[in-house]
């Protein structure tokens, strides 16, 4: 049974339709890559999953429960953890305060986050706004983990970061996959890295899911057509 399941989802920003027909599923412990060029609806799909945007058509099921009418904070409490695009931390709070503000009971606590990202442990009392971009991204992942999610969504978690930091974050994602059994939906442009961590991929094209399957089965021709790589 899928932990997350979207069936024929459509969504709008005002009168503009952004998603036309998106279907995808993530099983417990599975890592799924959500791919597509810019503007194809990846972040909108994430917003719909997290209930930051309501779908007008189709269904969103999380752990078998219909998420229609569920507010965003309840979706997060149900076990959907989001690492938003753009390293969005609470800038005025310290690293530790960012984590405490999001904390829910479960295996992920401050010590576990510090073990995953030792850099954060060294900057516990530092304001989030004064961290480097990579450290802010680590904090955003740590904060999402502190909600003790069953599904972690990483929206462009490595975008705009230095290569060495990207490697640290990909290593952390690989650890999460290997050691925790956490279901992960990851959005990224790095096909090479996604091939290493993802079990399957879903490709979006103009607000529609157009291809689903193991990343090994994504031919160079399809990759060029849908991803421009």
């Amino acid at each position: 049974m899928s932990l997350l399941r979207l069936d024929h989802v459509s969504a709008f920003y005002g009168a503009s339709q952004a998603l036309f027909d998106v279907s995808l599923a993530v099983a417990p412990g599975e890592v799924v890559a959500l791919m597509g060029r810019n503007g194809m609806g990846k972040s909108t799909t994430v917003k719909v999953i997290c209930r930051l945007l309501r779908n007008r058509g189709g269904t969103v099921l999380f752990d078998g429960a219909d998420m229609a009418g569920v507010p965003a904070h309840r979706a997060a409490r149900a076990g959907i953890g989001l690492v938003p695009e753009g390293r969005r931390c609470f800038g005025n709070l310290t690293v530790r305060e960012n984590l405490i503000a999001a904390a829910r009971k479960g295996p992920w606590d401050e010590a576990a986050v510090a073990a995953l990202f030792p850099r954060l442990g060294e900057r516990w009392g530092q304001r989030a706004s004064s961290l480097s971009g990579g450290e802010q991204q680590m904090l955003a992942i740590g904060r999402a983990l502190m909600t003790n999610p069953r599904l972690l969504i990483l929206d462009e978690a490595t975008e705009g970061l230095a290569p060495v930091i990207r490697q640290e974050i990909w290593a952390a994602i690989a650890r999460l996959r290997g050691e925790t059994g956490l279901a992960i939906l990851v959005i990224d442009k790095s096909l090479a890295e996604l091939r290493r961590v993802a079990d399957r991929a879903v490709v979006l094209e103009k607000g529609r899911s157009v291809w689903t399957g193991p990343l090994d089965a994504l031919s160079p021709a399809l990759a060029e057509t849908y991803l421009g790589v």
Partner: protein
Amino acid sequence: MRREHRLNALILGLVLAVPLWAWATSEPFTITLATRAVIFAIAGVGLNLALGTGGLVSLGHAAFFGIGGYAMGILASHAQTYTPLFEWPFVLEGTKSMPVIWLLAVAASALAALMIGALSLRTSGVYFIMITLAFGQMFYYFMISWPAYGGEDGLSIYVRNGFPGLNTLDPIQFFALSFAILCAVLYLVTRLRASAFGLALGAARQNEARTRAVGIDPYRVRLLAFTLSGAITGLAGALFADLNRFVSPVMFSWHTSGELIVFIILGGVGRLMGPVLGAALYVALEHHLGGLSDYWQIYFGAILLGVVLFARGGLIGLIVGRETAHD
């Protein structure tokens, strides 16, 4: 020890030292002024929890200040006339006991804040400001038109309510009581701001969607903060009524709400001791500038303008830098 902590200790020390000096030199009026500053500071600290930490610009906090004041006035007036407040379904007598009055003042103002907050927190920005202002003015006009407790003329209390073991008619003892409450409120607010609730409140102020995404309902967090804020302001109102032994609808007016905001802006929005410094300066300037001119508020306005333009973190920010403390 951080600079802001040292400054906070200095401010609190000065607030304590001035009335002690006045007591030593037999200047009871100065003690009363200091008590007035401390009570305003309590109200300001209450509002600062909503405004500074939560970003909720309430222009209706005078409602809670007035409710606290009238809770004291009504209970004490019934106690001095030996008439019950009501006799059905049970008999409720008036009281001159400060702890009982404070309890009822806090409960009444918290309930009012809960109800006002439940409605007004469904809006934000300028609409929130206007709705809180409207609620404050509703209470103001209600009290003006309620003759049972003095209407527009207000209500005089001929006794000073009692606190076990203290002579509350002695200015220095009443000051000590008010100062102890200020310290307790500051301690409570410090703990609240460092708690998961306080951090969630600060997070909701920064970004609502991001806060929802980590499982926090901003509405609930803000409603709790608004209720606590109203309760603290109500307690200050009860003390203010006891200090003056008089309550009037002016306690509910938007001018009072504005004054509370001015204390916070003057001292520093979101700073723990911002309202304390702001209230102390306001009372000092009101006394000294008021002695020079009836239009002292023009000069005060110029000072406030200077603080807003050149010290964005209030006077505390000007002294210690812009960074706000969270611990």
